[in-house]
């Protein structure tokens, strides 16, 4: 049953008034803070700290009442789209619904009031939680052990590259290059560079997959490994993965699995079984921990047996007597986080895994893939897929048709979708597809929502024909209309003080 107007499953934002900054709301002398009555003697600072360290004048912050503070940030939320408001089919980002239960778990002071430096004897519950999560992530990925320290995907990638480097160095093996397909996320080549390697790009073939012949031609004894996303960023499964793995291992290289798209294969196939040696996961994607408007994430890295000794430390482990302890692997690359990683994100992910269980996680992948294929098929006549066959959890469509015919670009469609009350898909990525629109509906959106989304896109295609100029100007019904990004870069104003100058 489709929703009237196509909007019932999502909603436009209502916050159309420009909100003053908190500094513009400031009135001298106003304040909101209240502190404990401590009874500690109020010794003048000058008697405690040498004058040469003391500030000449206090740092100026906004001065507002609690009521003003609540009004300000509440009004800002009315100008912010979110998963809770509506569908967010942003490809490669896995913006699924975040179960509230997981947030409730993380709000428990028994977890979130524990100091990270407290001795293990005082944080046994936390260590058990971390050990349990590690073993479940290993079961899901088919790996031997994992570090939970990396704070997000890119940190996980670099950690994985450093593990690759440490492994080769321990074998007295100097290697120079890491292979990356041309469809890879931009973070992959960045991580390779920071890991001290050079990037060799492998082209895709006409099916959107790694060109196996080109890969084999690029392999050699100086290749440290390959970074692969599978399914890749076209949403397509690398069907020759077994051959790829064999070829890379043949020259002594390691396989790195970029877990950005892990949601597609949960319970269906495991990176370890495909031959991968290093796997990073984005818990804020696959395991539904909320993205926070751009973090926090968590990017655990799981490894095959031969890399376990190199993992970052300290790691929570279970001692023979049954209690939990911190231990650092023998040839550890060292710390990659100031403490133990984004612990509250890790706790949410474990709660999500526990609620779903093995079968539930498999259903996640099945329904994510079903939804993406339904959307791809449903939009066949409107926005055709760049590669016309069964996809995994996301589909990359192309707007070249309406661009050639009406001069309406993929970006215009994406902006038009905002007026329809949906978030845009990812645009112009992957780079190898012209006018790419990458949709990842996720498993948490219903058929009715997908129907609404498809109806909105059909309306936009019709509008492209009828009123292309209108679409160039879209969106107009959002809190602000199309934003002048060039001006922001040309004339940088990154603080209130720069705005005053």
């Amino acid at each position: 049953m489709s929703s009237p107007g196509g909007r019932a499953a999502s909603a436009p934002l209502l916050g159309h008034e420009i909100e003053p900054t908190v500094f513009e709301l400031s009135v001298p002398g106003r304040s909101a803070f209240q502190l404990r009555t401590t009874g500690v003697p109020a010794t003048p600072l000058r008697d405690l700290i040498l004058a040469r360290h003391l500030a000449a004048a206090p740092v100026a912050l906004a001065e507002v009442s609690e009521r003003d503070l609540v009004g300000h940030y509440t009004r800002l939320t009315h100008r912010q789209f979110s998963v809770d408001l509506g569908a967010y089919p942003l490809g490669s980002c896995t913006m699924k619904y975040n179960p509230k239960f997981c947030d409730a778990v993380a709000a428990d002071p028994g977890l979130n009031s524990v100091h990270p430096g407290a001795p293990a004897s005082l944080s046994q519950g936390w260590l058990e939680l971390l050990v349990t999560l590690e073993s479940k992530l290993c079961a899901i990925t088919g790996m031997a052990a994992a570090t939970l320290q990396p704070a997000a995907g890119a940190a996980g990638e670099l950690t994985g590259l450093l593990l690759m480097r440490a492994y080769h160095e321990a074998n007295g093996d100097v290697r120079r290059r890491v292979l990356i397909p041309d469809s890879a996320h931009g973070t992959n080549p960045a991580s390779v560079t920071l890991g001290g390697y050079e990037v060799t790009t492998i082209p895709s073939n006409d099916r959107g997959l790694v060109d196996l012949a080109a890969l084999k031609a690029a392999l050699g004894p100086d290749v440290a490994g390959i970074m692969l996303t599978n399914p890749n960023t076209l949403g397509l499964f690398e069907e020759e993965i077994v051959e790829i793995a064999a070829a890379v291992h043949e020259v002594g290289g390691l396989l790195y699995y970029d877990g950005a798209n892990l949601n597609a294969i949960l319970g269906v196939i495991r990176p370890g079984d495909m031959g991968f040696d290093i796997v990073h996961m984005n818990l804020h994607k696959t395991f539904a921990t909320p993205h926070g408007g751009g973090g926090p994430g968590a990017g655990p890295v799981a490894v095959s047996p031969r890399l376990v000794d190199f993992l970052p430390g300290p790691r929570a482990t279970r001692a023979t007597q049954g209690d939990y302890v911190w231990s650092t692997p023998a040839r550890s690359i060292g710390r990659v986080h100031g403490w133990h990683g984004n612990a509250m994100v890790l706790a949410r992910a474990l709660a999500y895994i526990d609620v779903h269980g093995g079968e539930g996680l498999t259903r996640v992948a099945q329904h994510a893939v079903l939804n993406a294929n339904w959307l791809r098929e449903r939009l066949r006549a409107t926005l055709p897929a760049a590669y016309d066959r069964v996809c995994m959890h996301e589909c990359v469509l192309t707007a070249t048709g309406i661009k050639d015919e009406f001069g309406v670009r993929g970006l215009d469609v994406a902006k038009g979708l905002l007026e329809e009350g949906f978030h845009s898909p990812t645009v112009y990525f992957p780079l190898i597809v012209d006018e790419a629109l990458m949709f990842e509906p996720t498993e948490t959106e219903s058929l009715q929502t997908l129907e609404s989304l498809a109806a909105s896109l059909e309306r936009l295609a019709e509008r492209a024909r009828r009123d292309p100029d209108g679409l160039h100007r879209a969106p107009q019904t959002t809190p602000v209309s199309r934003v002048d990004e060039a001006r922001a870069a040309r004339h940088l104003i990154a603080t209130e003080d720069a705005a005053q100058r």
Partner: protein
Amino acid sequence: MLAFLGMDSLDQLFAHIPASVRLAQGLDLESGMSEPDVAAVFAEYSAANRGQLSRLTCFAGAGAYDHEVPAVVKMLSSRSEFVTAYTPYQPEVAQGVLQAIFEFQTMVSRISGLPIANASLYDGATALVEALNMAAGATHRQKVVISSGVHPHWRAVAATFARGTGHEVVVVPFKDGVNDWDRVDTTGAAAIVVAYPNYLGVLEDLSAARALATSRDALFVVCGDPLAAGVLKTAGDWGADVFVGEGQPLGTALSFGGPFLGLFACTIEQIRRLPGRIVGETVDSNDRRAFVTTLRAREQDIRREKATSNVCTNQTLMAVTAAIQLGWLGTQGYAEIATRCAQGAHYLHDRLLAIEGVTAVSSQPFLREFALRLPRRADDVLDDLVGAGILGGLSVESLAGAHDPSLEGDTADVVLIAVTERRTRVELDHYADVLSKVLS
């Protein structure tokens, strides 16, 4: 839906995946449980954490502090529009997060005394790594000189990432609680890195370090405490080129160490090398004020193999939280908190020093944290304090290992004690009384 695709089973969607490597039996995991059943499991984890603050009075710090976080900050920062949004790639529907980050950048700029701040990094330790990358990029040199007053974990993280970048990390030892620059070769340094206050709580006059950085044409990086500028000079006042900090004290719970908040600010000269996201002010097509992520060409997912930074997703929710917390504090509250920390810390410091066998590690000034040498192993003493309901601090041994260039002699009997504005005189007196008994 399957029928629409001309399929009759979900398995058909996966038929193109090679059967030889597909899972035959599904995952080796327990069956799913209802939310209340999972809640019961988590209640056991929670109960096993004897260190939770309802059971112990917290004097532990080292970058993670028990500060007041009021209901209004918790409630606003947990609004689902902030919590369940993605990175603001579509500014027309992300003005809420973008404006909150813009305000956050302004606040970080002011408390660091530097003109530009980014939208956040993972944590203090990884923010330091980004500062080192910036310095190497700015100077085309590989050597980074880091004071041993920088948190031992931060130094460890810097060493880990140097394995990939090839940076040569030189650690400066202390003498009498301050940097002994003459003991290391600083020629060819890309960065001179100090901490203010340092991880042992000490405030060192940074004039010498600034002069050294100038003489080496290196970037001067100050690792700072975001609450310190409530009463102390800012990093900018000391001439820093870069400020990095751990933003946890700005509204984030102890959280067992994460998610925390990496703070990063720098001079205008370094803007093109600034890691992570920056939000800038602009206008929309109707000439109304709007905010947008800008200078995107610097960011690692765009620069690809030319990147010098390792952050894509950052810690936006903690940054928004910090902005709300600083809004709650205001000019007056921000200064008041730092003042109260200093008053409480000095009161406890003097009471503990009066105990026989307890000595000061440094005679230098401090703000809210200080290190003391105890007559026996600090971890054993701390264990004894737990029995009296006190998390008495952290041993330097637990942070830095048995030996560290920041201390002459063993680390084992040195304890690091933090006092926040939440500690009452009764709690401080109780600590002193119990420690006195434990040591007698």
